[in-house]
């Protein structure tokens, strides 16, 4: 499998990172090197092996259904680069 510039453009859109056109090709070859390198994993026999998603050998902890947080608009908005309190604002979205 190899990443062409179209694929790189596509994943850059998915990741919301603007990549200038002239950088697409060098980036594609860089990423290709990495992908080519990780493909050595195909040598490993993993038949019947289940994927490991966590090393934590424990059951998931749960919390009680009580209100313990919130009511802190100031702290939530404190770092917002743009806001019209008590809202965050973004460029207008047309749905």
């Amino acid at each position, binding site marked *: *499998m190899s*990443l062409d510039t179209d*694929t*790189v453009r596509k*994943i*850059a*859109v*998915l*990741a*919301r*990172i*603007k*990549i200038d056109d002239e950088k697409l090709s060098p*980036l594609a070859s*860089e*990423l290709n*090197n*990495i*992908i080519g*390198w*990780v*493909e*050595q*994993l*195909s*040598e*490993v026999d*993993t038949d019947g*092996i*289940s*994927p*490991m*998603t*966590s*090393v*934590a*050998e*424990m059951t*998931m*902890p749960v*919390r009680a259904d009580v209100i313990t947080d919130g009511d*802190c608009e100031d*702290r*939530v908005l*404190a*770092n*917002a*680069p*743009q806001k019209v309190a008590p809202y*965050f604002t*973004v*460029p*207008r*979205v047309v749905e």
Partner: protein
Amino acid sequence: MTQANELTITEARDALIAGKLSATELTQSCLDAMAKAGELNAFITETPELALERAAQSDARIAKGESRGALEGIPVAVKDLFCTKGVLTTAASHILDGFVPEYESTVTENLRNAGTVMTGKTNLDEFAMGSANVTSYYGPVKNPWKLDDGKDRVPGGSSGGSAAAVAAHLSLAAIGTDTGGSIRQPASFCGIVGMKPTYGRCSRWGTVAFASSLDQAGPMTKTVRDAAIVLQGMAGHDKKDSTSAPVDLPDFAAAITGDIRGMKIGIPKEYRIDGSPAEIDAIWRKGTDMFRDAGAEIVDITLPHTKYALPTYYIVAPAEASSNLARYDGVRYGLRVDGDSLDEMYENTRAEGFGDEVKRRVLIGAYVLSAGYYDAYYVKAQKVRSRIAEDFKKAFAQVDVILTPTAPSTAFAIGEKMDDPIAMYMNDVFTVPASMAGLPCLSVPGGLGDDGLPLGLHLISKPFDEETLFRAGDVLEKQANFTAIPAGWGAGQ
């Protein structure tokens, strides 16, 4: 005479208890050293006023006989990946411009409650992605160790600023985070002790996430005993982190007995890699001999999937990172670069806010998770991860501790390996396998390489058996008797 900032925690604690030294004096001596060591670029943010304020509080508690214990009044430098309330937190990324958290990470909160004095936020690779501390938006960190060639060396990464700060005696201890080797490899490069606890030992709450299934905070210190003391102050179950282990904390320092007779030390043959420099083999052999001399039993073991750990890591970690870093979108904090539409704003912000290595990993991560590739890459990697973990499980049925080199080389010059990501990734070849299995690891200075720069020895133990690790590490440390210090920092000038 030894200056206060050159003391170990153990020594400083004794001096504080004896009243020979105040926390304020101790802190001031670190602040003075920091002021002279600006060239290292070890800190992104220094917090001298806050430090002196907390030192004064420590002194007051000590005076009233209310000392909080071994860490009372001890200056600690904090990797700028831990969110600190009211103090700029950057993850060394442009995208977190101006971000001042409204909260304190559990680890730094624990340390504060233990009486430590935070001296500042240390430099790192951007979002902890790197092995040389060259990807920081705030510039590279220099290794305090110098050679006559005049070239600056990297301190390793990603916790490079923390490692440099301890090595140059800018702080008695520092804390870092380790995802694939980010504490241990810089510890090796800088000639200090670096420890990555078992996954789940330290809470991840409030620490900027890189790869959630791997990230773990840990101490970086001058001695193994100090590492045990600092870990004691950082660790503990946290209900706010669902992956934090609900296990009791043993007294880590008490495990250091000096006696490892009969302990079984495993030597995995797969860590002997082709083309590896002779000095690496030599230090590893030296470590083996030191253990044997101390009465341990040396056992040859096999970890068959070792060579696949690094490529597995470079699927799993970028995949998680691509998702973890999605929140940096210019809406709620940090940098915002405007655009005509929401998507344009996102794309501009993230293009300008992230550096090249971060972009590379985010894109790789998005790719290996994307439709059509998920099974071939991500699921495959998770399966190989199972195999790697199995290897360790089998090995630990035979041995108590595994000994390997920490890094495949000594510190290299700033600028080297910059244009070859995979060569850079190879720095973590010895540290990543145990990370994949979530195991506790310790890097102890073992000696100097051919070039006169430090090399670490790497110990791995069973999950939640940090005690054995500290006991073994302490013996290794004493045997190695690593006394070399980087010239020109701390008091020695």
